[in-house]
């Protein structure tokens, strides 16, 4: 079982290293010549890299394949690390473009600042901080991959406030219990003021859904784009007091690369406007439940929207 998989990873690594080497050479040449295969693009290769979870890998493939189809010189690198690694790679110039989530960026760049469920407010905090690093935040998509408080379909609650009188058992990952935008916010009398009958610590991921379905807990802290939510017929409670930070998908690019390519910002904005939260759920279902490859899922979605 595992051997072919390792071989595939090893081969993929080899291939990427080879391509990276070749493109490095290309890069120098095209800088002087000012031409390459593409239509509107004349600048340096745009290196895009996903983070190591399926949703972000698919996002990187969607943006990468789309830009390539629009004639930009794009290289999609092997996904690596998470937000910290992505920011590091952007700053030291190993990567030019990443797709990230704005609320997460705010927590990473300015942990003490006030979070908000309004994307515009989050953008106003992180935009100048990214600028200082020579990075540009492009227009966020409406697709929001954020926190979600999830209950079974037959629950009488519709919004988080409704939980106050229900004496539910709460399930969440350990980090939730010390975060103001999570358990502390739910129980804080000044925010939601909910009293839970009991709490259970459950690893983030499908275990949350399994425990909720088996009525081990009545409400779990999960994410808006978990494909299992629909699978199980669960529902997401409305965050009626705006506790959860906005986690809209947004491209972050090295400013010098952005400026070197005419029409790049417009192209990225057009794509971001096409993506919705439902699309993310759909992709995650394809990669996590149907076990399909992110590049395949990305290609199919782009084709279905006529973007390839």
């Amino acid at each position, binding site marked *: 079982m595992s051997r072919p998989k390792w071989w595939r990873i090893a081969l993929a690594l080899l291939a990427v290293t080879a391509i990276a080497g070749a493109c490095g050479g290309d890069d120098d040449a095209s800088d002087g010549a000012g031409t390459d295969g593409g239509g509107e693009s004349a600048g340096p290769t745009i290196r895009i890299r996903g983070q190591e979870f399926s949703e972000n890998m698919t996002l990187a493939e969607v943006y990468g394949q789309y830009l390539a189809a629009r004639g930009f010189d794009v290289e999609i690198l092997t996904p690596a690390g998470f937000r910290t690694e992505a920011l590091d790679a952007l700053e030291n110039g190993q990567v030019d473009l990443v797709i990230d989530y704005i609320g997460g960026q705010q927590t990473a760049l300015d942990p003490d600042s006030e979070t908000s469920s309004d994307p515009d407010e989050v953008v106003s905090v992180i935009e100048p901080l990214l600028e200082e690093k020579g990075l540009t935040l492009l227009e966020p998509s409406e697709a929001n991959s954020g926190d979600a408080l999830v209950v079974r379909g037959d629950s009488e609650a519709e919004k988080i406030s409704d939980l106050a009188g229900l004496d539910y058992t709460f399930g969440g*990952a350990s980090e939730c*219990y010390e975060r103001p*935008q999570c358990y502390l916010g739910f129980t804080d009398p000044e925010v939601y003021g909910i009293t839970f009958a009991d709490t259970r610590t459950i690893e983030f991921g499908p275990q949350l859904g*399994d425990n909720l379905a088996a009525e*081990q807990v009545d409400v779990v802290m999960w994410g808006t784009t978990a494909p299992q939510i629909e699978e199980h017929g669960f529902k997401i409670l409305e965050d009626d007091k705006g506790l959860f930070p906005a986690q809209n998908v947004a491209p972050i690019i090295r400013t010098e690369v952005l400026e070197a390519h005419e029409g790049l910002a417009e192209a990225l904005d057009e794509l971001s406007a096409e993506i919705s939260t439902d699309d993310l759920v759909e992709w995650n279902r394809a990669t996590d439940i149907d076990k399909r490859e992110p590049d395949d899922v990305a290609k199919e979605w782009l084709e279905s929207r006529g973007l390839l």
Partner: protein
Amino acid sequence: MTPGGGHSAAVLAQAAARRDIGVFEWLFDPASWTGPAGILRSLGDTATLCAAVIAAAVAIAVPLGAVLAHLRRGEVLATWAVTVGRAVPTFAVAGLLVPIALRRGWGAEPVPIFTALLLLALPPIFLNTYTAVRAADPAAVDAARAIGMRERAVLLRVELPLAATTVLDGVRVAAVQVVATEPIRAFLGGDGLGRYVRDGLGQNNDGLVVAGALLIATFAAATGLAFTAVGRALPEGVRRSGARRPRTERKERT
């Protein structure tokens, strides 16, 4: 301030330890030991599950190993216990069982973690029992038969007492392994002593991780020492006739 910024100290204390807390500062704080998330409660949870697992493993593996060894059967099973049995991936077994148990309405605990730990505990106990009964002094066994003991009595009154020290050794090894492995249950929807490592990892709290690891290691070591003490307290005859008996003693007696 953040929306939840005004939370009271009481809410925080119930939910999580301070992120920069020192290992010993946390361990020596009486508040860490009491309450539903306290060390005493967690220790109790861990000890209960481990005791149940070891009791079940002894109840299965000792009779099985003893009877098979007495009958000179089950070589394959013994070999299997050495090789395959020790390679069972406990975490994977428990992790795979959790969704199944939940779907069947058994709950996240204790069936998956109990089964996984039982599989971990069976091989050393079975193997030691099997080997020790099989290696019981043939002279003693022959003598027992010569004075007219039934096979059942040969096993229960001669072979097993001779094997007792080695059997107990197997139980000790199994118990230490079970206690040291039980904390994985904190990652499978349960609590117990592993909860501090889990919470420390999730909350980026190194003090909590180290303190939790210390608690687990201490409890595992204490378990080992407790079984050694039990071994020392065995009746003199059983102890001296055990596998560790020096050869010279037999000469003196005969």
